[in-house]
């Protein structure tokens, strides 16, 4: 069948709807994830989500995979959220949990004797498996994530990008870190079922990282991240139809291409700005270079 004929099929339409919702959530969360320096935490969350999904598949069958993935992701995201923004300790804990989760997942998959497509799908993504029940749970998750974001967005952005000031202004930085982790866990669990655990990052990180290269406006960065994520997911699904390959390599490929384009565009923009500010324009500009040299020397926590 050609791609056009395949697009008429119900399961393909369901997959496109599911992908669209997932990309929306990924685009909304992405800039915050990048701002908080949580890319590795997302990867860890997706592996634990994979373990949860694989465990549910083994114990309760294919119908329980979504719930298992959700439980695994949210549990581990809570641990990462509680660790806060102390990047140093966080990275090693994530590494420890990630490898443990992956090991568990592999064990569950080896013990499972059912359809092999079910188990392969959790790692590299599947669109055949999405049914109407999945779409409803996807829509509910989507609404909850968007609703919570709408209510908490400003304090969340403040706490993510400027934590010291946010704390001084009375923003509950720690509680927000945990709330954000739950949103992240729920979204990751959806991502694991659609694009697979291995390449969730291509949706949650790459579009936002690309957007961050071309704009510093939080609003524009979010709009671009949603746009890039939609292009990657919907494009990835359509391209994967005719060759009958998993969708994740296409999603990851498109997202990577967009990232490369943004990086080039961003470096051109930075160079233009640099050449503009070479001429001292006031008392503040004269010692700008010595100032930044000083700033570079002082050790500062990177989060």
């Amino acid at each position, binding site marked *: 069948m050609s791609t056009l004929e395949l697009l008429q099929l119900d399961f393909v339409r369901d997959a496109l709807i599911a992908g669209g919702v997932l990309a929306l959530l990924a685009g909304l969360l992405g800039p915050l994830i990048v701002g908080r320096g949580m890319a590795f935490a997302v990867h860890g969350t997706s592996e634990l989500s994979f373990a949860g999904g694989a465990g549910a598949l083994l114990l309760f069958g294919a119908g329980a995979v979504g719930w298992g993935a959700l439980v695994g992701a949210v549990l581990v995201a809570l641990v990462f959220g509680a660790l806060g923004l*102390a990047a140093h300790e966080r990275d090693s804990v994530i590494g420890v949990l990630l490898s443990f989760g992956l090991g568990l997942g592999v064990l569950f998959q080896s013990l499972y004797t059912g359809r092999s497509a079910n188990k392969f799908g959790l790692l590299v993504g599947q669109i055949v498996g999405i049914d109407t029940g999945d779409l409803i749970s996807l829509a509910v998750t989507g609404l909850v994530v968007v609703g919570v974001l709408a209510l908490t967005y400003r304090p969340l952005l403040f706490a993510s990008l400027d934590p010291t000031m946010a704390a001084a202004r*009375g923003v509950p*930085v720690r509680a927000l870190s945990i709330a954000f982790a739950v949103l992240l866990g729920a979204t990751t669990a959806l991502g694991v079922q659609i694009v697979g655990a291995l390449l969730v990052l291509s949706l949650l990180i790459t579009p936002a990282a690309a957007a961050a290269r071309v704009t510093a*406006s939080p609003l524009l960065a979010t709009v671009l991240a949603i746009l890039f994520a939609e292009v990657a997911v919907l494009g990835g699904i359509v391209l994967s139809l005719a060759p009958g390959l998993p969708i994740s390599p296409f999603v990851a490929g498109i997202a990577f291409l967009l990232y490369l384009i943004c990086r080039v565009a961003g470096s051109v923009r930075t160079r233009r*700005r640099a050449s503009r500010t070479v001429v001292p324009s006031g008392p503040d500009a004269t010692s700008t270079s010595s100032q930044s040299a000083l700033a570079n020397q002082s050790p*500062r926590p990177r989060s």
Partner: protein
Amino acid sequence: MEPAVELSGAELRRGPRTLWSGQDLQVRPGEFVAVLGPNGSGKTTLLQVLLGLLDLSAGSVAIHGSPPRRGNPTVGYIPQQRSLDPLTPLRGRDLVGLGLDGHRWGPGFGGRTRRRERVQEALAQVDALEYSDAPVGSLSGGEQQRLRVAQALVGDPSLLLADEPLLSLDLARQRMVVDLVDRRRREHDTAVVFVTHELNPVLPVVDRILYLVEGKFRIGTPDEVMTSENLSELYRTEVEVVRVRGRIVVVGAEESPLHCEEPVEVGAR
């Protein structure tokens, strides 16, 4: 007139240690009070009490007659200068805007025009309009600290708290920050509590000094507080205060003239 800050019999303990006690302090609107003292003397914790992040162990504290509370819009806060990550996805005006409503819940769709105006006004007050659309991470330390001042002023505060805002800035930029704060309090009668390691950058503008050393303190004008006798008593060792060409030099106190203090985070991580 109601004082901007009123502490009476205030005491703060951290575990078994008493940082300070019996503290009575009134800061009038428009007054500039510098808080000095060695590391660990409780300067930053004093600000945390005024911000409503810490409770006193004893005594009372009031900001414009009411107890301190988190996110009080009439209290502005300037942190230490610490460079923002080069890839921080914020422009200058976004950073200032967060100072206005970053602590507010809800989608915040209403009042966008008014918000933009207020951010614009705050940027103009510190002459930062020129680079307000540039990514904050691409700006110099001095430019970032100007934005920090705007971020503190955008809520139109009647009390301004500053926690070592001069640290790691060179002399010209130290003067710039002090001038901005001084201009604000003269034009808007904003009270200022300014925690600093170094007295000299603020000496020309300061009204009174609160000098804290290991639970003891002195309050008064620079001439009243900065005497060899006073500081020797506070530090319990021979300390000499010398005046050289309008500057005050403290010799013998275990105060490091270099900025080697570890940055103190406001609020536990």
